[in-house]
C-alpha cells in the first residue's frame, strides 16, 4: 500500500496586476510578482494527503525559467519528497500541447525510477485559464482522465482504483478510475495545510533538480514555440470598466434608489413581466 504521485505546479504572474502597455500594446511583465498557481496548491494537498494516509512519495514537477525554482522550494516546504524543474530555452513559448509533451517526457523518466500511480494538477492556471494540461497528460501517458475533482472519495491501491467526485455544470458524478490516473482538482477538493517547521527545515536541505530538454530525451521540434500549433496573433486590453452611476439611498430613500436602478437595468436589456 503505497502511492507515488507527481504533482504539476506552475509559477504564474499575479494576474490581478497584469496590464497591457497602452503605448506598445504589449504585455507589461516587469515588476509583476510571481505566485504559485493557487489551484496547484490543492493538487499538492491532495497528493500529500494520500501519501500521509497510505504511504508512498510525492514528486513535484514544474516547467519554467530558472526562477520557477522558488515555486518548487515552496512546495518542498509543505513536505513534498522530490522536486524537478524543467528549464531550458527549448521549452520557451510552449502552448498546452508542447507543454504536455515536455511534462509527459519528464513523468516517463520519473516513472522509470519509481512507477507513477497518479499525476495531479490544479483545474487550470490563473494566467492561461485553459484546463488543458491535465487532460493532455492523461492522453499522452495513457492514464485514466478524471478532471474537476471536487472531492476524493478513496484510493484502493491494492485494486488499483481511485474513486472521486467530479463537478459538472448540471450536477456531480462519482467516477471510478483505474490507476495510473491523471487528475485535476478544484479549490473545494480540500483545505490547504500550513507548512510545518520540521517540513520547512527538511526542505532547506532538499535539492531542486533541474532538467534540460536533453535530460528528458525530448525532440526539440516538439517543444516550446516550435512544438506549439497555436500562435498569439494579437493581444489587446478588454474594454475598460468605468465607474458608473452611483445612487445614495440616504439622499432619496432605498425604495427610490431601487426604482432608479431597476429603470437602468431595463434600459440595459432586463425584460420583465409578460414580455419576458
Amino acid at each position, binding site marked *: 500500500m503505497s502511492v507515488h504521485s507527481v504533482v504539476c505546479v506552475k509559477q504564474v504572474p499575479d494576474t490581478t496586476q497584469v496590464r497591457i502597455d497602452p503605448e506598445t500594446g504589449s504585455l507589461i511583465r516587469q515588476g509583476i510578482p510571481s505566485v504559485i498557481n493557487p489551484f496547484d496548491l490543492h493538487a499538492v494537498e491532495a497528493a500529500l494527503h494520500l501519501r500521509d494516509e497510505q504511504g508512498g512519495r510525492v514528486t513535484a514537477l514544474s516547467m519554467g525559467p530558472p526562477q520557477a525554482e522558488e515555486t518548487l522550494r515552496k512546495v518542498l516546504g509543505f513536505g513534498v519528497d522530490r522536486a524537478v524543474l524543467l528549464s531550458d530555452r527549448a521549452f520557451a513559448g510552449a502552448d498546452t500541447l508542447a507543454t504536455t509533451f515536455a511534462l509527459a517526457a519528464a513523468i516517463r523518466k520519473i516513472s522509470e525510477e519509481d512507477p507513477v500511480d497518479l499525476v495531479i494538477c490544479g483545474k487550470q492556471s490563473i494566467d492561461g485559464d485553459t484546463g488543458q494540461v491535465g487532460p493532455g497528460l492523461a492522453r499522452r501517458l495513457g492514464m485514466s482522465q478524471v478532471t474537476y475533482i471536487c472531492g476524493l472519495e478513496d484510493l484502493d491501491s491494492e485494486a488499483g482504483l481511485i474513486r472521486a467526485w467530479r463537478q459538472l455544470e448540471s450536477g456531480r458524478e462519482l467516477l471510478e478510475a483505474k490507476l495510473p490516473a491523471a487528475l485535476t482538482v478544484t479549490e473545494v477538493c480540500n483545505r490547504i495545510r500550513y507548512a510545518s517547521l520540521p517540513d520547512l527545515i527538511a526542505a532547506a536541505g532538499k535539492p531542486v533538480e533541474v532538467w534540460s530538454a536533453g535530460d528528458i530525451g525530448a525532440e526539440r521540434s516538439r517543444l516550446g514555440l516550435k512544438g506549439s500549433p497555436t500562435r498569439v496573433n494579437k493581444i489587446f486590453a*478588454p474594454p475598460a470598466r468605468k465607474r458608473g452611476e452611483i445612487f445614495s439611498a440616504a439622499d432619496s430613500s*432605498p425604495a427610490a434608489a431601487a426604482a432608479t436602478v431597476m429603470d437602468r437595468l431595463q434600459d440595459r436589456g432586463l425584460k420583465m413581466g409578460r414580455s419576458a
Partner: protein
Amino acid sequence: MAGTRNNKKKESSAAGKAGADSNTGDVWVVIEHEGDLAARVSWELMGEARRLAADLGTQPAAVVLGDGENSGQLAEQAISYGAAIVYIAAHAALSPFTAEPQSRALAGLVGKYSPGIILLGATTRGRDLASAVATDLETGLTADCTSLEIDPGTKLLRQTRPAFGGNIMATIISPGHLPQMATVRPGVFPIAKADAGATGKVVTYRPRLAAVQPVRRLHYLPELEDEASLQGADVIVSGGRGMHQARNFSLLEDLARELGGVVGASRGAVDAGWVSARRQVGQTGQTVRPVLYVAVGISGAIQHLAGMQQADIVLAINNDPTAPIFNIADFGIVGDLFEVVPALITEIKKRKDGAGAGIVFDRVVAEQTRKEAAK
C-alpha cells in the same frame, strides 16, 4: 504578385483539401448532452457554426456521441438549429460521458471526414473532450473563446479569448493545423430560432471501442435547485463580509430568485464559513461571466474583481461610498444593504405582471449597451 500567390497557398492549406471530399473543411459542433437533454451552449454554437461555414463556403455539422438511445432525437434538434449534416457515433461505452471513449470516437470521425473547425462548449465535459482530442490529433485548441471569426485573407479561424483573469484579450490562430479546435463559453452567442422544417443528412458511424473503459461512472447527482451552478448563470447575486452572518444570505437567495439568478460569494464570506467554497467567485474560486452581477456587501478586492469583471452589467450595494467595487460598477447604491436589498425585491415584484411572470435578460441588448457604456 508573389505576395498574392503566397496568400492563395495559405488559403488552400487553411481550408483543407476542399473539393477532394465534399465534407472536408466543414464546421463541426459537438453536441453535449445528458441523456436526451442537450446543453444550451450546443445550440448557441450551432448558430455560430452556420455563420463560420457560410464565410468558408463549407457546411455546418453536428456530432452526437452517445449510446444511440437519444441520438436520433438530438440529431433532429441539431438539424432544426442549422446542422446540414449530423454525425452520430453510437456505442454503449459512450454513455455516460467519460473522456477516453468519447475522444476516441471523435478522433475517429475526424480521421474519416476531415472537418476544418470543431467547436465545443467550454464546460467541464467540453473542455475535457476537446483537450483529449486535440492532444491525440496534435492540433491547436483555444479554450474559452468569446468571439470567433474567419480571417477574410487566410481563411484561418481567429479565436479571441480572455487571459490573465480577464485583464487581457488575446486572438489566437492555429496556422497549418487541422482541425482548428475551440471551446466557447456558454452564453456568449445568442441561440438561433429552431426551424422544425429544416432538413439535413444523418451519417451513422460505429466507433471501435473496448467494452470495459478505464473510467466508469458510479453515481450522478443532478444539482439541487438551491445550489444551481454559477457557470452559465445569467444573473449572480453575491454576498461578502458585509452580510455579517450566514443566515443573512437568505436575503440574497430571495433577490436571486426574483432575478432568476443564483447566489455567489466573495472569499471573505467563504472564509468566514457562511457559504460553501463552491459558491466562491474570484481568482481562487470561479471566474464567471453573467449578464448581471450584483455585489452585495463586497468591498471589491482585486482578487474578487478578477472573477467577475467580465460581467456585462455590475450592480454594487455597499454602505461604504469609498468601496473599490463602485469604481467598476455600472450602477451602485450606497446604503444599508438590509434596507436596499428588500427595497429591490419589492420593486422587482411590483414590476412583474402578477404571479408567474418571468424575468429575463436580452443578452444582445446587454452586450451592446455594455460596449456603449465603455466608450
